[in-house]
């Protein structure tokens, strides 16, 4: 592999580097855990890498509790997320997704922004953030800013709305309305580490003190070209009392999740298996 590298340490340098390379072929690298593998398979002679691993800007790196939610810098690593107590307590779905990603060595360098921009249907942190209704905050090299719901940001297999002159600066997650939550991330695979989900299910369900479901987010990974937010399954739950959910309700919920699953068969699992497991898992999250 032979390519140019531009190292950036400030957001100013970063945006300038992006601006300067608008007419050339470049990739942005932070943890490089996916990028290096991709570069092995392509001609890198005409390629420039903008390295942001050493970027010091807090807007890109920090995890900050704000009044209306949590802001996580694009350069936060999976380990930063795993180690964050606020996330562990308030957003178990994200904590679990980050802790089930790859292995310790990779978690120590793999970044949130990288996980999102890799746009894999089995991206663990991405799937959990979709269930959490996260928003991406994007800057362009001219200083322009925009925000977009993560589930809108991803528009297809390996496709996002990100333009060549843009980069994700950070993401925000809305504050929980209630402390009463059912939240988790189920990842199915045959290894405990170094695994890419065969199927995953992220869920974050909030109840008021009476047990009435007031908000729900459910996403499913590796069963469609993108990671779908299972709207109808979530809508089905709203207003229901968590304690009164019957077996029939759970089955109907699972059936609604299945509406979003159109998996393929590949060497890792068949379509049949992916559907079967997603259905089984969807029923188990309330027990």
């Amino acid at each position, binding site marked *: 592999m032979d390519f140019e590298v531009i190292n950036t340490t400030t957001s100013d340098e970063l945006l300038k580097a992006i601006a300067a390379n608008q007419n050339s072929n470049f990739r942005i690298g932070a943890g490089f855990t996916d990028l290096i593998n991709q570069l092995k398979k392509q001609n890198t002679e005409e390629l420039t890498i903008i390295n942001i691993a050493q970027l010091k800007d807090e807007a890109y790196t920090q995890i900050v509790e704000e009044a209306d939610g949590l802001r996580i810098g694009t350069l936060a690593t999976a380990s930063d997320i795993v180690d964050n107590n606020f996330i562990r307590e308030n957003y178990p779905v994200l904590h679990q997704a980050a802790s089930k990603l790859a*292995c310790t060595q990779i978690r120590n360098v793999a970044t949130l922004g990288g996980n999102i921009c890799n746009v894999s249907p089995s991206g663990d942190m991405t799937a959990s953030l979709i269930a959490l209704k996260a928003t991406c905050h994007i800057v362009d090299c001219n200083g322009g800013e925009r925000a977009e719901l993560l589930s809108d940001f991803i528009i297809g297999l390996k496709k996002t709305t990100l333009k060549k002159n843009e980069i994700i600066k950070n993401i925000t997650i809305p504050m929980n309305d209630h402390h009463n939550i059912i939240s988790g991330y189920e990842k199915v695979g045959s*290894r405990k580490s*170094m695994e890419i989900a065969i199927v995953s299910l992220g869920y974050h369900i909030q109840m008021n003190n009476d047990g009435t479901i007031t908000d729900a987010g459910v996403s499913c990974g590796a069963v469609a070209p993108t990671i779908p937010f299972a709207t109808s399954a979530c809508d089905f739950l709203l207003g229901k009392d968590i304690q009164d959910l019957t077996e029939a309700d759970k089955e109907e919920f699972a059936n609604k999740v299945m509406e979003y699953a159109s998996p393929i068969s590949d060497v890792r699992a*068949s379509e*049949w298996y992916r559907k079967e*497991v997603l259905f089984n898992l969807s029923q188990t999250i309330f027990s």
Partner: protein
Amino acid sequence: MEKELKVIGKSHRKLDGKERVSGKAVYGHDIELPNMLHGSILRTAHPCAEIISIDTSKAEALEGVECVITADDDVYDVNNISYKRDHPILKKGTVNCNRDEIAAVAARTKEIADKALQLIEVEYNVKKGIYDPVEALKNEAPQINEFGKGKEQFGNKNMAESFHYEHGNLEEQKAKSKVIVKRTYELPRVTHACMATSNITAEFSPFDGRLTLWSSTQVPFLYQRDIAHALKMEPSKIRIIQPIIGGGFGSKLDMHPFEPICVLLAKKSGKPVQILFSREEEFVLSPTRQPMVIDLTTGCDENGKFTFREVEIIKDNGAYTSWGATTPFVMMQSYSSLYQVPACKFDSHAVYTNNPFAGSFRGYGNPQATFSIETNIDLMAEELGMDQSEIRLINANYKGEVTGQGLHFKTCGAIPALEKVIDESDFEKANAEPKGDRYKKGIGLGSMLHVGGGAKIYRSDGCGTVLKLDDYGYLTIITGSNEIGQGSETVLAMIAMEELGIAEEKIKVINTDTDVKPWDVGVHASRTSFVAGNSLLGAIKLMKEKLNKKAVALLDVVTDDWEYADGKMTFNEFEIKIDKVAREMHFGTPHELCTVNYFYEPPSKFQDKDFKGDVSGNYAFASQAIEVEVDTVTGNVEVLNVHVSQDVGRVLNPIGLQGQMEGGLATGIGYALTEEMIYENGELKNPSFHGYKLLTATDMPPVHFYPIETYDEAGPYGSKGAGEAPLIPTAAAIANAVSNALGVTFYSLPITAEKVLRALKEQKEKNKEVLV
């Protein structure tokens, strides 16, 4: 009572441990020679095709390319390879499997070489190919390997190899049987997944015709002979140097085309050439475990005593023949002699297909055989209403037994090993326990028999040792045996420390250069510590005779009873430093060096034409009780605990032995649950660790290891070979545990989550039908 030992039996870290963990170890990939070129090999685009033309002109014209070779090249003056001589090194005319090598390039950089490959134009006439051995046996099937001698030897043109074995009166034993169980088992292709990919560096001198190879082979002297045959050279003109090897597990027991190809590139270019496999090449090209379909019929009488085993095996030989075809040598042992078997009939046929060929892999057919045997045992016990542990205990091998095949168990830890795991796992309680709701628990047993004192497959199964004690009291052990990570050179150093009282820092083990070291057959059959250990003990005996004689002369005392400890030789009040004795030998008359050499040949016998005979110096026995938990939502099987008890004769290095156990179990668990090379029409669909589910450290369950010491007099200090055994009964025990958890029996490996969910679904539907 066995003699109290100071070093042997106490944990000793690996001699090369620090180099390995610090990154200082020099692997084949680290070798760099002046003017060295990088080689790449063009492989067929289709597993079955005629080659109409090959045009290398564009590749040759690429800047940085030094030479390109094909089978039409002048330098290509070669013999076919493989033990059946049915494998051309470079292919012309036809290609028969996805590995087939068509052309090779040597260039200044790896990138240029790879680019040149893309410029080679090959025109194919693509054919359908045959990927099922049963299809290949049909009359209308074309002959797959033009060099195959199946028609003359076995009556079918696509038969590559065949074995028949029998002992006892089968019909009489069938008549005695109360229960007869007949099942068909399917075993997958799996790969060794060595962390260091295959590699070779070749330097050929046009001046004296000598060839030096830096190679990752695990059998350097056989390899030297194979390279010589392939390239029509004198074996002694070939020097094999083994850099540190990052995993062998049997994969490096045969020579493969890339190795002579590398030499041809070096010959043609006049420069050293190196070929390193990428991970994808390692998956596609390195030999696999032998896939097979086993039909096994077994019986027992009303008391649960085994009566007979009848086995018919069809093996997918692939397009060429490698060691996979010879796995019956080991499988015959298991079918004929694992537990007491009054009658046995065994037939195995390896059939050419357009799939890749299998090689040797730790266990050598034994995991496949043991999986079928142990599953059938559970089924017989169930039908008889007998406990799974009891049926095994009453049939277990015993000390003094001479089996139908002629294996003589002079020591035997089979029953103690079984009893130990049954006891430690609380087997009977766990076996009967309720299985749980979503997560269902189960426990299963498996036992195994394997050679423990080498295996006389070649004319010699021996090992040579040269010892040199220098003027400063440093000992150099030049051993014929190899270190491929199994820890045998550490065991050799421990033996020398024990016997000669020399400190570890004064011991060097030299074992990497065929120009220097004496002959040894190589690393296979769990033999190295056994054979090389005995060889070293023989050499030490000779060296002690020399030292004793000199000490007697120097101290003017008459005795042969010297104690060697702390760098000194002591007898009563007489004491002398060992280095002083060596110096006096050197500088005093009659002036000699303190060197000796010794060759050890084990007492084992070559088997006769019926495959009968006491083939090994001793035999290893082991049992495993494995606890699993099956998630009925996902189908995943988690191994909770492994209880393993193994007759190792005597523990030499406890920490090294534990490492062998854990490493073997990791491979065995993967074989049972996750690993499979997925082939479709001759193409590998999962040539990466992403798609091929090699387990990682985080998947390892707690391993409870209970060594059984039987002190076999054939082995060094009573020890037996231990390396292959820990993975052999693992898949069998896990399969029995899953069956115990779910009430469903699995007849194929791996027992993937998908297979489990499908089985549960079928079970549920059957139950529904019953209710209706």
